[in-house]
């Protein structure tokens, strides 16, 4: 682990004509400077691999039941969510396709979806599922892909954080040519490559009634340390 300081030690470069070691030819490059370069880069490698992936306006006023109907009150697998348009009270969507990189110690980060939610009361249950699938093209989840799920019955807005440990099985290698704009060209500047995953969220509400709705508020998807 080369992030013992957990911060950057920023150093200002000497001017071209300056004599400040260690940035001038012929001056000593002490091991301290080398250690700080390692420390700074170790810290940046970790911090830059962890980031906010998605923030949205949530799903407000949802009432669509799970595929099992109004009696379904369990933490749902993705197949229990009705992936349907919002005009019929659904709460579901893709949180986007994202590139993911390893942390400096070789681990893959954890993807967390944090949000606040509440049910409609009256004995109703809401349930939500957070799923990830390999790839960078907005693929829908596949049976067997990892997911995290929960239910809620309270009418008080409550924070819920879903969590998925990423691994090679949740990531797909992407390599595709970048062809900008709409003009035809004979040369492609470079390739898009890396490890990508696509994330999904869906929720149900046992009420099935637009007068008894649930709310999902302030969803944020981010990467963090395992």
């Amino acid at each position, binding site marked *: 682990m080369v992030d013992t300081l957990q911060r950057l030690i920023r150093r200002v470069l000497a001017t071209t004509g300056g004599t400040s070691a260690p940035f001038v030819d012929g001056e000593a490059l002490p091991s301290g400077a080398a250690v700080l370069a390692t420390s700074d880069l170790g810290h940046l490698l970790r*911090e830059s691999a962890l980031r906010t992936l998605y923030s949205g*306006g*949530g799903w407000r006023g949802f009432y669509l039941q799970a595929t099992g109907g109004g009696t379904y009150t369990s933490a749902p697998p993705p197949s229990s969510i009705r992936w349907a348009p919002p005009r019929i009270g659904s709460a579901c969507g893709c949180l986007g396709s994202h590139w993911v990189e390893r942390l400096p110690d070789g681990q893959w980060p954890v993807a967390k979806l944090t949000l606040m939610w509440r049910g409609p009361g009256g004995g109703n249950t809401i349930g939500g599922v957070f799923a990830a699938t390999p790839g960078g093209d907005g693929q829908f989840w596949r049976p067997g892909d990892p997911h995290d799920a929960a239910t809620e019955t309270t009418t008080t807005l409550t924070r819920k954080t879903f969590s998925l440990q990423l691994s090679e099985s949740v990531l797909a290698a992407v390599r595709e040519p970048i062809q900008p704009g*709409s003009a035809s060209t004979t040369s492609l500047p470079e390739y898009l490559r890396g490890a990508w995953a696509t994330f999904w969220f869906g929720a149900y509400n046992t009420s099935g009634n637009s007068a008894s709705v649930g709310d999902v508020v*302030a969803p944020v998807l981010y990467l963090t340390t395992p």
Partner: protein
Amino acid sequence: MSTEPCAPLGAPLLFYAATPTGAVVRSPHLIAWAHAANVCALRRPAKRFQIDRLRPSADPYVVGYTRTSTSINYARLRWFYLADTAYEELQVDLTIRDSAGNSVASSATTIPAGFKNETRTCLGFTGIPSEDYREGGTGYLDLDALAATLVGADWSFEFTVTRPTGTVVIVDRIEIQELPRDIVDSAEDYGLVTLDADPGDPIFAGSVSQTGFRRLHRTLDGARLVQRAYGALGSWSATSGTATPTTASATWAPLIAAAPVAGFTYQSIDDGAGTPAAAIYQTRVRNIGATAVAGEACRARFYYRVVGGGTAEFRVTTGATGSPFTLTGQAGGWKWSDWLAVALATNGASQLDTWKIEAQIAGGATNVYVSAVQIDENVA
């Protein structure tokens, strides 16, 4: 100018023990550091945003964007629809504007197909999600080519959604993502090409614009200054109506949106409780300075309109020292507000902090509407 693949084997493992006292530091050390700096500065761009569930509107959906650096050259645009009932049609038109008043219309060759207001036929609903979520358009932006026209630092992506045929299908989402670079180019602002380093050579100082230890630190600084995005909201058209987050309060209040149609699952930036408050967003904050309640310098801006004359004020509340942060005297619109300097704390468990947005009106205004929010790092 020289180029090479950008860290084709990924980020290197770095060890303190690689440079012990008494041992000579040579090119292999510089090469390892260079690959690490190149990964951080070039392969981990900081900006991405997504607009969800766009209903057709004559008014655009707007999102704010500030490029990570001049060395991040490409972004990918995609839009999807969720099939609904029967065959219908959608069009998406993109115009990009900058803070200096310049614009690139969808007719420009720099705007990819799929975002030029072409008519896309949307298939009917099957009930099989993997078949019903369908791509409407994918393309890439050459950010350097756009920057030739868009010389202002802060850009604004404006998407107009039209449904020439049908009554129900909507755009499920639009994703815009800066892309990792595949190439290190010594002619660009950041990136250290290592091809010319002989493993037996000592490290040389070089220059910030070319090679050597100075260029390494220049690239490391580029990684420090990526200005990561923490909030990117824009899922409301710039319409002065109840479906757009708004307040008519002269004291601090949440911005509340209502369902566009009864029974429609909608989006807002209030918490929807009986007496609504601002929605509390939580995220992990990058630690650049140090883990502290003073946190990281960030900035926020709002795409807004004040109705009835007068002005609006915006307030961002976080866990950092100095919170809440207040922006006053914003009038007119639709337009982007001034930037508001804010901070996000890094001392929370797992470096988590929260932010929420409130507004109030003054001077005779009757309402303020906000259709987009941009919160980025502002590391100096």
